[in-house]
């Protein structure tokens, strides 16, 4: 038999579970979420003091598969672009022109209506031409570089958020500090020593059972790893930590998402639902610093280029549109920064399949009230390409990471990134 605290948690488990029952909402035994184990004081340990180093959250949006930057932010004045893309270009008349008066000769893909609105409100920053030296055209290797911020990729160790977690944030061991909503974990979050919290569908993030089974499951999950052979001890320890985090967080997440009343209407697709879950967690006292979510597959080699790309950008736009609207008017709005990235852009010249092959540089997007909206970086030239017919990057993605680390998290970029990446002026003071 457990202590009173255990009993409370079991009640929380049962309370959360009952939310699933159709008629169980009335008289449900909800419980207060577990109080945070670490204070903000310990959170800030190891980081440099900065105005917004506390309570700021980053939402990482990974556009996997290689987003075609040139039809996302369209260079509609560029003849070279239209020559290279006879069937896949977005026509000047179709694109959502940004600010022609200020001489911006770029337009958003027609699906990006919310993006344009945020841009006009000064809440969206476009960093053009983002890439890295010696571009790699493998999805996986390129993502490794983006995820670790190091050219060696996986072999260099933890992901960049993982390093943040294991370094400046190590004083806070709570799994909720870094949350991924969805199936596959992006490597950027990975840390060899620190847990992350990952779930897909909150309503299903539960081990179902009668109270007595849940109690035994919980008791077994509390047992620390040990007693196994040396070589397997680490593996069991890691699995045990994963199990324990699942057991303790599942009822909190169920309660947070099950009771959530958003202030905006989220679109009915997975990406939208994931963002709704993130907003729900933010509004229920989760003290996560990084949320991660992925959208894809942007690998438009063939004729799906036009239709699929439009569909995916539509999901990106409607999902983030609802999310930002949902946060508006809450204290979370000013504390939330959205960062969208992809492993590479696509080849400038389209192929015969009316699609595009793997390319190099592409745009990154930052969204939120604290963003310095507008165009940043330098547009890459569409007619002066590298030997392989690819855009030559003008901004290293690690400069964007450096800006986020320094201005958003108050962490010296050199603690996380290879040195020498100058932060950009992407966030308002």
């Amino acid at each position, binding site marked *: 038999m457990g202590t009173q605290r255990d009993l409370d948690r079991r009640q929380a488990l049962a309370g959360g579970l009952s939310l699933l029952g159709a008629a169980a909402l009335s008289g449900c035994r909800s419980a207060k979420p577990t109080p945070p184990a670490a204070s903000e004081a310990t959170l800030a340990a190891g980081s440099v003091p900065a105005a917004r180093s506390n309570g700021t959250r980053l939402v990482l949006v990974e556009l996997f598969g290689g987003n075609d930057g040139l039809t996302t932010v369209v260079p509609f004045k560029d003849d070279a672009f239209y020559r290279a893309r006879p069937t896949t270009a977005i026509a000047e008349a179709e694109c959502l022109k940004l600010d022609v008066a200020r001489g911006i000769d770029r337009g958003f893909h027609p699906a990006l209506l919310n993006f344009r609105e945020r841009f006009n409100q000064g809440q969206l920053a476009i960093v053009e031409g983002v890439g890295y030296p010696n571009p790699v055209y493998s999805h996986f290797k390129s993502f490794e570089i983006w995820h670790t911020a190091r050219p060696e990729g996986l072999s260099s160790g933890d992901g960049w958020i993982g390093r943040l977690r294991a370094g400046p944030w190590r004083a806070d061991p709570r799994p909720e500090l870094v949350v991924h909503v969805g199936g596959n974990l992006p490597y950027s979050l990975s840390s060899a020593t620190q847990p992350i919290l*990952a779930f897909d569908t909150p309503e299903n993030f539960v081990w179902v059972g009668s109270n*007595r089974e849940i109690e035994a*499951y919980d008791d077994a999950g509390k047992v620390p790893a040990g007693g196994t052979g040396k070589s397997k001890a680490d593996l069991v320890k890691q699995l045990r930590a994963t199990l324990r985090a699942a057991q303790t967080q599942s009822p909190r997440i169920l309660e947070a998402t099950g009771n959530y009343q958003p202030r905006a209407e989220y679109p009915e697709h997975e990406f939208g639902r994931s963002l709704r879950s993130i907003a729900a967690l933010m509004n229920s006292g989760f003290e996560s610093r990084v949320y991660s979510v992925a959208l894809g597959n942007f690998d438009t*080699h063939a004729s799906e280029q036009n239709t699929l790309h439009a569909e995916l950008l539509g999901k990106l736009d409607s999902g983030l549109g609802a999310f930002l609207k949902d946060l508006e008017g809450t204290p979370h709005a000013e504390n939330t920064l959205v960062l969208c990235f992809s492993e590479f852009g696509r080849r400038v010249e389209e192929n015969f*399949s009316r699609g595009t*092959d793997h390319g190099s540089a592409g745009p990154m997007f930052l969204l939120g009230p604290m963003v310095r909206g507008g165009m940043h970086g330098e547009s890459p030239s569409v007619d002066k390409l590298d030997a*392989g017919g690819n855009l030559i990057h003008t901004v290293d993605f690690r400069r964007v990471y450096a800006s986020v680390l320094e201005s958003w998290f108050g962490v010296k970029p050199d603690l996380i990134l290879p040195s020498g990446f100058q932060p950009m002026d992407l966030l308002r003071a």
Partner: protein
Amino acid sequence: MLPQLLIVAAAWLGQVPSGDPAAAQLPPWNERTVRHLFDRAGFGATEAEIAEALQAGPRATVAGLMLPRRPWTEVEPVLVRWEEFNLGPDQVPLKTSKYATPEEAAASMQHWRAVDRTQFSQYCDRWFSSMIAHDDPLRDHVTLFWHGLFTTSFRVVKRKYEIIQQHQWLRRDSLSSFRQLLHGLVEDPAMLQFLDNNTNVSEHPNENLGRELMELYSLGEGNYTEDDVREAARALTGSTGDPEGRFAFRPEIHDAGPKTILGRTGNFGRKELVDILLEQPACANFIARRLLAYFEGSAPDAARVDEYARCLRENDYQLQPWFEKLFLDPRFYREELIGARVQGPIEFLVGFARKTGIEPPPNFLFQASALLGQTFYAPPTVRGWDEGLGWITNDSLLQRGNAAGVLLGVLFPEERAMSESDPSAAVEPAMGSASDPLDPGMMPEQAPAAQLGATVRQMLFRAGLTNWGPTVDLIGDFERRGALSDEQIVDDACKRWLVVPVDQETRRVLIDFLARERALAAKNSDPAGAWEIALRRFTRLLFSLPEAQLN
């Protein structure tokens, strides 16, 4: 303790270099190593298989793994032609045909989708059954490996004809040679469609297949240049799948000019390209590393990769000698590998069914493995699934326990709990009743059905499981094995179902759980029924633990 020490000692002795397989020492042969072999080469050993293997010895057992135990007849899938069912009698697409209302057009589409889905679902059931029955365990497990390597997804390849044909080909050739497989890959209609090679034409080559062929299927990143990718794409132009779902070479869109690929120049086509790839030293190393990492469950060191790459080269990429070498290699049985591998979802579910003797209902394993992160024929990316610890997230770990609960019949949809005729209703209080008078806890006991996660529920309904229950007699099962007391049951279950034992504290939790359930069952109006449910719940609890995910 002593046998364990002996294994360790034997495994250590086995680390003496064994370049010549004939001179190599045989692996230690005991219950633990036999289990290890069947866990990795197949989907877990039954008691009968262990006894047989111990009797037969390592050579005969490994030789037996190369042969099917029961014949497998390939199916002839139905070619569902979208273009045909989409046309009215006037040869106009149904959507605009005067012969069909929009509803009729949609219904026609729906009908044919259902036909295709059904044949795929039936095919999956057949394959899952073969794995559970160990009809041809090594072949089936290696087929699963090839599917994870040579990824193809039904999210891209819409017709199930090509998907089923690809799987049958992979299964047929899974133990042939990597040379044969790689040649087959560039002529496989599903692969050609999946990586856009049907529209790879000489004028503007599409690099998708050329790149992944080198990066993911043969050499590995870093062993070719961007120029090689472009040239390989040219060599692959014209290799397509035709409307009949067959391979078709179309010379009119093939670039017959000279290409330079990995230092060789010639008017290469797909066959020459594949031969050039197989000639690369990186190729045998790449595939040996992938196979070792999968079947040993641990990243191999450079010396081990070299040794096993050499085995591929010396045998012209033949796979049977390769697997024979591996499974007779004492180092394959070294203690640090045993139980140090996270089972993939399909393996976990198939292994669970084999261990408990439960025959899963049709379509369930497909649905459940998808819930656990491995949708058969829909890997998340072209690189396949992230294996090992990549299988385990907070979420998927909980779902493994849920899937085990469904298979054991202790989780079921609430509609069924309503039914009074249900035997488990006898031990569960009716829905909405105030409390379980037998439950010493504070909480009223609810039928688990009311708490089913949304996706679990969906999975049950999709699999048509509303009226399904397993045929299993755990009471009799444990009794036959002489496991009567709570301690004996827990120890017996851990011994036969787990490779990595649970620690003393966890063992105590399990014993306490059984003790409490036993006391409650004794007071139940149907004590035997209640005790059977208790044993199933205990089994499900055990398979929910981290240790049960390892083999």
